[in-house]
């Protein structure tokens, strides 16, 4: 025993390769962290620098004093509030609808055996991987005919094309994990499928609903193609950021764009950090477990 222990001490203290290895490993970790964070950190720094210093290159920009002016300007820009409001309405609307519809579908797909179930699962998966451009012209004329152009309702409707298949797919994988005993007990008591769903399944689905809803919300919040095509005055946040126009027509207002970008991204990052575990499990169950 004693011999073995001294042996180990000698190993860790004397071997230089171990030291080199751990230094290299730390450097590797730092490189990865820098790669993942630098573009975002650069955006944050830019957003706190005077608009004029930004056009003088990275070195002079870093040396310039810090300021909150850019944020003040973004908050004074009415288009930004409108964008936030529209994005919130559209994303929440699409997500809530998808969760309601998705819970019912997921219960049927996750707990019952019936003919054609596999086909339905594949159709739902196919729609979620579908190129959105393939429906753009059809959806555009449908939305025009329904007089919903530039109306958040029209955009909510169009977002269901990705939020519903996603919600059904992820919720189904969660429903499958719920132990059958719970359901069987309800059946013994003579509960109908609807009663079982509402009184037995739904109460244990809280985390699943949070995860699915959050991921679907992020997808809807970030959507650009439909938002750009189906709205003109009622822009959502990605369209506002992409077409941010400052006081001058000829100079891109980078300082303001960065401040606005940080403002719309920070809430997402906070949400993601709070629900980190749910998100990772949701992403992996949505994509890997299938």
């Amino acid at each position, binding site marked *: 025993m004693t011999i073995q222990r001294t042996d180990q001490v000698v190993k860790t203290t004397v071997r230089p390769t171990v030291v080199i290895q751990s230094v290299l490993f730390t450097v*590797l970790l730092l490189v*990865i*962290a820098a790669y*993942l*964070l630098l*573009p975002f950190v*650069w955006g944050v720094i830019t957003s706190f620098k005077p608009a004029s210093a*930004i*056009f*003088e*290159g*990275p070195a002079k920009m870093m040396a310039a004093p810090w300021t909150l002016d850019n944020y003040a300007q973004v908050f004074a820009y009415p288009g930004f509030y409108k964008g936030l409001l529209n994005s919130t309405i559209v994303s929440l609307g699409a997500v809530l609808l998808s969760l309601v519809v998705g819970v*019912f*579908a997921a*219960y*049927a797909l996750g*707990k*019952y055996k*019936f003919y054609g179930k*596999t086909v*339905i*699962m*594949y*159709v*739902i*998966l196919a*729609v979620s991987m*579908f*190129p*959105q*451009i*393939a*429906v*753009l*012209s*059809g959806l*555009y*004329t449908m939305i025009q005919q329904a007089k919903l152009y530039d109306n958040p309702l029209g955009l909510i*409707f*169009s977002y269901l094309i990705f939020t*519903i298949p996603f919600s059904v797919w992820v919720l189904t994988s969660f429903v499958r994990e719920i132990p059958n005993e719970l359901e069987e007990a309800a*059946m013994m008591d003579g509960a109908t*499928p609807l009663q079982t769903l509402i009184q037995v399944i739904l109460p244990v689905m809280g985390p699943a609903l949070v995860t699915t809803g959050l991921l679907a919300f992020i997808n809807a*919040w*970030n959507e*650009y*193609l439909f938002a*750009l095509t189906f709205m003109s005055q009622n822009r959502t946040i*990605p*369209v506002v*950021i*992409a077409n941010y126009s400052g006081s001058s027509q000829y100079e891109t207002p980078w300082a303001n764009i960065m401040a606005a*970008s940080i403002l719309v*991204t920070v809430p997402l*990052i906070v949400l*993601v*950090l709070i629900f*980190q575990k749910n998100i990772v499990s949701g992403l*992996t169950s949505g994509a*890997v477990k299938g």
Partner: protein
Amino acid sequence: MTKSQPALQRRKPGGVLAVRARTAVWFLVPALLIIVLVAGYPLFKTISYSFTNASLVDPSIAENIGIGNYWYKTDDGQIGGILVDPKWWQSVGNTVLFAVASVFLEFVFGLGIAYVLNMKFPGQSLMRTAMLVPWAIPTVVSAQMWYFMYNDTFGLIGQGMGAGAVLADSSKVIWAIIAVDVWKTTPFMALLLLAGMQGISADIYEAANVDGASKWTQFWRITLPLLKPTAMIALIFRTLDALRVFDVMAVMLGTNKAAETSMTAFARRSMIDYQNLGEGSGVSVLIFLIILAITILYVTTLRVRFD
């Protein structure tokens, strides 16, 4: 009682459970109905428009022109249509290059990062958190951040690192955008691969250690083969996603240049900016077919299973 039982079962095959299943299947109706309405019907309309000369101004007065949007021959022998349009094929070529290159690089980087994060070290959870940052940023926002960094007179990469006007250089622009996409989606790939790695039992590695297999051998002989199912699905998802690229190109290149490098931007310009609903729908149908073909190829040759 016992005698009437078989008769009852014949009327309702499967008994009580099947009856309940039939009720529960009705729960699927709202979701399927909405999918038909928001995906099936518009797809059908897009396909129908692609055989007409419909204009965005008033789609109701369209004339049927058969396959005229795809291919036509005039009386004096001139050939035209999307299928012989070199600009369209240029856009397809660039999109495929973008998809193949960015998915390949994402996979290599993602695998590396997942492998590192799968080790035990102080600050491990902090690193996993940092990984979620690029993923959480809206694509339009990350495109703007990189667009700013690429600026050749004051950007961090364009001026600070001396890369120059990469977005104006036709040989570099696609790689500049691939770099943005790789940065944005590597974390997603790494997350999926990390989850796959954590699913591999530690016993296998212990056995390999006992047998004296090196870390390198273990990675190629154990980690990669066992990761294959996860990796395949991640690759399919990312490839299909990359083939429909639009946001990053539209923001960094503008409508016209984006149409040279993104199939989706090409279709949208024809449909919305040129108001040529029929032709734009034709382009959309071709995109749909290209992506369908690639999906079938992937799923059949690699025998991927989703359940």
